[in-house]
């Protein structure tokens, strides 16, 4: 399989064999490869705040021997003066070998990929796509459960605006899994996703009560209620405390349930769960480095 020169923009761009190949290379990238991308430069163009995505991409590049340039605040760029994404990318491609872009504007990564002659990786475009998060989630599930097929996976929280949940559900639909969507009605998984998943033969269940289904789950994927995605602040206030998982959850779950979260969390998982064997969210974040190392190496054609 050849990923050289490919853009990583949307979960829709991948086949199952693409995903399996990326997971395989990510496993290999857990080993040290300090010279693999020697002489290569990554441009990180971050038009909105990010902790994990930017730092783990930078860490991935440094660990492979490459260098990084970029910005993490559009106020310090010419975009502030009105420069377009298109022009910003045409400039960045002159200075680098691969670009990671994050923007609150949906579709900007797709546009960046059309503008650039070098590979572009989407580090998140608004509520649309966040493919590298989806890949590290998939990698984490496979790593901790040793399989994906047959798992019962619960998604809890903001399923309406949560791009990670939407993308992960679509990616998981390549496998025979069962999905439980746990959210208040107003934040439930959009109907068109449920329809698409059911058309692919995925059993989908919807509920607003986590304890109603928690006993069945192998994975509970929790997400933050994202203030920044709510068009109406009053609406956010209504739902921000919808779910608060704490130690009482342990009486209602299987012994080997694993709790995932794309982070940051703002209270939906109490810290008292962190030290239990169920919590894998920090390991999940750490897996981001191996997955992003794999993606950088793959799109630069240097994975071997």
């Amino acid at each position: 399989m050849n990923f050289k020169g490919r853009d990583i923009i949307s979960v829709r761009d991948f086949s199952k064999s693409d995903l399996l190949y990326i997971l395989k290379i990510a496993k290999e990238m857990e080993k040290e490869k300090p010279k693999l991308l020697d002489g290569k430069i990554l441009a990180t163009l971050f038009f909105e705040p990010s902790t994990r995505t930017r730092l783990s991409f930078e860490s991935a590049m440094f660990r492979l021997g490459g260098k990084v340039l970029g910005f993490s605040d559009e106020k310090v760029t010419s975009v502030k003066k009105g420069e377009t994404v298109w022009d910003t990318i045409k400039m960045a491609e002159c200075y680098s070998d691969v670009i990671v872009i994050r923007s609150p504007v949906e579709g900007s990564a797709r546009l960046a990929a059309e503008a650039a002659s070098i590979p572009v990786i989407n580090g998140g475009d608004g509520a649309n796509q966040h493919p590298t998060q989806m890949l590290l989630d998939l990698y984490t599930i496979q790593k901790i459960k040793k399989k994906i097929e047959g798992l019962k996976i619960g998604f809890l929280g903001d399923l309406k605006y949560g791009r990670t949940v939407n993308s992960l559900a679509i990616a998981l639909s390549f496998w025979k899994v069962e999905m439980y969507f746990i959210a208040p009605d107003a934040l439930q998984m959009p109907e068109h996703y449920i329809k698409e998943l059911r058309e692919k033969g995925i059993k989908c269940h919807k509920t607003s009560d986590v304890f109603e289904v928690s006993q069945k789950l192998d994975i509970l994927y929790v997400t933050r209620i994202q203030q920044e995605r709510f068009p109406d602040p009053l609406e956010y206030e209504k739902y921000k405390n919808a779910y608060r998982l704490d130690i009482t959850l342990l009486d209602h779950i299987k012994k080997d349930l694993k709790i995932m979260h794309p982070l940051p969390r703002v209270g939906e998982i109490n810290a008292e769960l962190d030290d239990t064997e169920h919590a894998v969210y920090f390991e999940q974040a750490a897996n981001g480095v191996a997955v992003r190392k794999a993606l950088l190496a793959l799109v630069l054609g240097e994975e071997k």
Partner: protein
Amino acid sequence: MKERRIPAIKDGTVIDHLPSRDTFRIIRILNPQEFKHPINLALNLNSKKIGSKGVIKIDSRFLTQSEVNKIAILAPNATVSIIKNYKTTEKIQVKLPEELVGVLNCTNPVCITSKEVIISKFKVLREKPLEVKCHYCERVYGKDEVEIKGK
């Protein structure tokens, strides 16, 4: 003899088999204010094919492919006839292309197409009922949600 509800045209285009409820929307997207010759329109005619239909007759004007594509978005069963000297010289069954380029606006306010000057692109996911997806923000729209570009 069949009653003729709208007078025949010598040269021009006849658009038939439009759903009655969408006929006004269709005439609007063709920018009739820019046409210099008469346009006749009839609504709520009986149709074996679609029940209640509308017909538009445009004098001295032949529709372009891009105009025909716009009609296909709202009226997948429409037929477009080119009339020359009172005779039908060509009958075009409208057909949606796989991709609609520069035809629709994405109404997502945070889509890049609302921020920068870009030619819009939509993938047709389904023709009946219509479902299209913005190439950039990936938002999916149904027939009643799409916004068709004016000129």
